[in-house]
C-alpha cells in the first residue's frame, strides 16, 4: 500500500502550485497558431460565466422577461421571486432540511473516518494495508448496487422518509472516499510530535485528539467541505428514501418544483430563484475554499 507516497505527493503538489519551471517553457510557437485553441477556451469560460450569471439575474426578473428577453438585464429587481420560491415553492423548508442533513452528515462522516484513517495511515503493516484496500473498494461500487438492500433495511427500521435515516446513509456512502482522503493526510504528517508525546507518557487516544487531529486540520476541513458538497447535491438516495415534501432536500424540492410547473403553468423567475437557492451556497463555498475543493477532489488521481 503506497499511502505514504500518496500523501507526500499530494502535499508537494499542494506546495508547488505554479512553479514557472513546471510549465514546458520555451515552446516558442507563433502565438497565432494557438489562437483558435485559446478562443475555444475563452468561449468555454464565457459559457460557464454566462450560465451562473444568467441563473442569478433571471431569479430577479419577471417570468415574462425571462422568457421573452432572456439576454436583457433585469429592469427591476423582483425579490418577490425569492420569497415566493422560499415560501410557496417549498425551497425554504428544503433549504433547512438540506442544511441539517449536510451538517450532520459531514460532521458524522469526518468523526467516524478520521480515527480510522489515522490508524490506517500511520500503521504500515499488512493488516492496515488490507483494511485500506477494503475501504478503497467502496470507491468503485456504484450506488445502485447497494441501494435496494438498503431500502429493505431502512423500511424494516421505519427509516424511510426520515432525515436521520438519510443522514446515516450519507455518512456510510461518504466513508470510503473520506477514509481514503484522510489516510493520505495522516500518513504525510511528521512523526516527531507523536513520538515526543509517547515519551512523555501521553496516551494514544489523547495523542490523536490533542496532537494529530489539530495537525491534520487542513485535511479535515477539506474532507468536511467535500462531503458537504456531495450531500448538498445528492439526489439519487434522497429520491429513493424521502417521500413527503416536508422532508425534501433542495435537489428534490427543485425536481418537485419543475414537475409542479408543468401542471400549473410556469413561472421562470421563481424557478431560477429556486435554482439559485440550490446553487448559490455552493458558489459561495467555492469562492471561499476553491483551491481546497479542487485539490481534494483531484487527489484521487495522484495515486
Amino acid at each position, binding site marked *: 500500500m503506497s499511502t505514504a507516497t500518496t500523501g507526500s505527493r499530494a502535499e508537494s503538489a499542494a506546495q508547488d502550485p505554479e512553479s514557472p519551471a513546471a510549465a514546458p517553457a520555451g515552446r516558442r510557437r507563433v502565438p497565432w497558431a494557438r489562437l483558435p485553441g485559446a478562443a475555444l477556451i475563452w468561449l468555454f469560460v464565457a459559457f460557464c460565466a454566462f450560465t451562473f450569471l444568467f441563473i442569478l439575474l433571471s431569479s430577479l426578473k419577471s417570468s415574462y422577461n425571462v422568457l421573452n428577453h432572456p439576454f436583457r438585464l433585469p429592469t427591476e429587481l423582483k425579490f418577490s421571486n425569492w420569497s415566493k420560491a422560499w415560501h410557496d415553492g417549498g425551497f425554504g423548508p428544503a433549504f433547512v432540511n438540506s442544511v441539517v442533513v449536510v451538517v450532520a452528515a459531514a460532521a458524522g462522516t469526518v468523526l467516524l473516518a478520521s480515527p480510522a484513517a489515522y490508524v490506517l495511515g500511520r500503521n504500515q503493516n499488512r493488516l492496515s494495508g488490507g483494511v485500506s484496500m477494503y475501504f478503497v473498494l467502496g470507491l468503485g461500487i456504484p450506488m445502485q448496487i447497494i441501494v435496494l438492500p438498503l431500502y429493505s433495511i431502512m423500511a424494516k427500521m421505519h427509516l424511510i422518509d426520515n432525515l436521520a435515516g438519510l443522514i446515516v446513509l450519507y455518512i456510510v456512502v461518504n466513508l470510503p472516499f473520506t477514509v481514503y482522503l484522510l489516510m493520505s493526510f495522516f500518513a504525510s504528517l511528521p512523526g516527531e510530535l507523536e513520538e515526543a508525546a509517547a515519551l512523555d507518557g501521553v496516551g494514544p487516544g489523547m495523542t490523536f485528539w490533542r496532537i494529530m487531529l489539530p495537525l491534520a486540520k487542513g485535511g479535515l476541513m477539506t474532507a468536511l467541505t467535500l462531503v458537504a458538497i456531495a450531500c448538498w447535491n445528492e439526489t439519487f438516495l434522497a429520491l429513493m428514501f424521502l417521500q413527503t415534501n416536508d422532508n425534501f432536500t433542495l435537489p428534490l424540492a427543485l425536481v418537485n418544483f419543475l414537475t409542479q410547473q*408543468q401542471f400549473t403553468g410556469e413561472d421562470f423567475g421563481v424557478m431560477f430563484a429556486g435554482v439559485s437557492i440550490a446553487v448559490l451556497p455552493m458558489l459561495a463555498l467555492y469562492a471561499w475554499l476553491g483551491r481546497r475543493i479542487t485539490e481534494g477532489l483531484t487527489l484521487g488521481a495522484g495515486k
Partner: protein
Amino acid sequence: MTSATLGVRRGRAKGSPLARRRRRVFGPFLAPALILYTILFMLPTAYSFYASFTSWDGFSNPRWKGTLNYDHLTHDPAFKDAFFNTLKLLFGCGIFLFVLSFAFMLLLREMKGRRFIQGFIFLPHIVSGVALAAFWDFLLNHDGMLNKGLHSFGLGPVDWLKPQWQFNAILIAIVWINTGYYVTILMAGVDRIPPYYYEEAKLAGTNSWQRFRHITLPMSWDVVGTAAVLWTIGTVKIFEFILAFSGSQGNLPTTNQWTSAMYVYGETIGGTSPIYDFGRACAGAVVTLVAVVVVVVVLRRVTSRDRLEL
C-alpha cells in the same frame, strides 16, 4: 472484532513504545467506521448479488428463481436502452471529454490566467445536476434561449429536443459539466513531469511537437489511466441530470434516455406507478457493476503497458 485483537497481539510482539501504543488503539479507532461500512455498504453489495437471483419486492422475503432475472434482462428493451446509453456515456462521451480536456490542459499551461480559468471551468462540477438540468432545458427548449437568440438573427426555431437528439443534448451537457474536473486532474499529472526532461530535450534540439510526443504524452499516460478509471466509475452514477432534464409531469424519462441508475430507480419505486421489481433491478445493477469492473481492469492493463514501453 477479530481484526482488532489481531492488531493488538501483533503490537505486543514487537515495535517501539509508540508503535505499541498506536496498535492498542488500532481496533477501537477503526471499529465504528469499519462496522458501519460493512453492515450498510459491503453487505448490501453482497446481498444484491443474491437478490438478483430472486423474485423480490423489497418488503417480503425474496424467493429463489435462478437466472430468470438475467434471462429477462436480455429481452428487456428498457434495460438494453439503459445499458447502451451508459456505454454511450462511458465511451462516446468519454473519448470526446478526454480529448477536449487534454487539449484544454495543454493550451492552459501556456496561457496567462491559467489558475483563474481552471478554477472557473471547474464550477459546473460542484453544483447540483438538477439545477444545471433546469438551465439546460431552458436553453434548449422550443421557446428557449437558444431559439430566441437564433430568432434575432432571423433563423427559424430548431427543435433541439426532438426525441432522436435529446440524448445527444445530455451527452454534451455531461461533457460540459465534467471538463473542468478532468482538466484539473490531467494538469496535476502533467505538472509532476520533472522540468529537466524538457530542458534536456531542448538541448538535444527537439521541437515542441517532439517534446509533446515523446515526453508529455507518454509521461501523462499514468494520470490519463487513473482519470479514465474515475470517469468509468463516475458515468454509472449519472442520474439526476437526466431525470430532471428529460422527465416530465412526474413521469420518468422515456426509456431511450435511461441509464443504469435510472433503470434501478424505474424498475422499483420510481415513476407514477412503481413496479417494485427489486430482484430484476438488482440483476441490472450487478450487470453494471461487472461491466465497470471489466472496463477498469482493461483500462489498468492498457495504461500500465503503455507506461512501461516508455
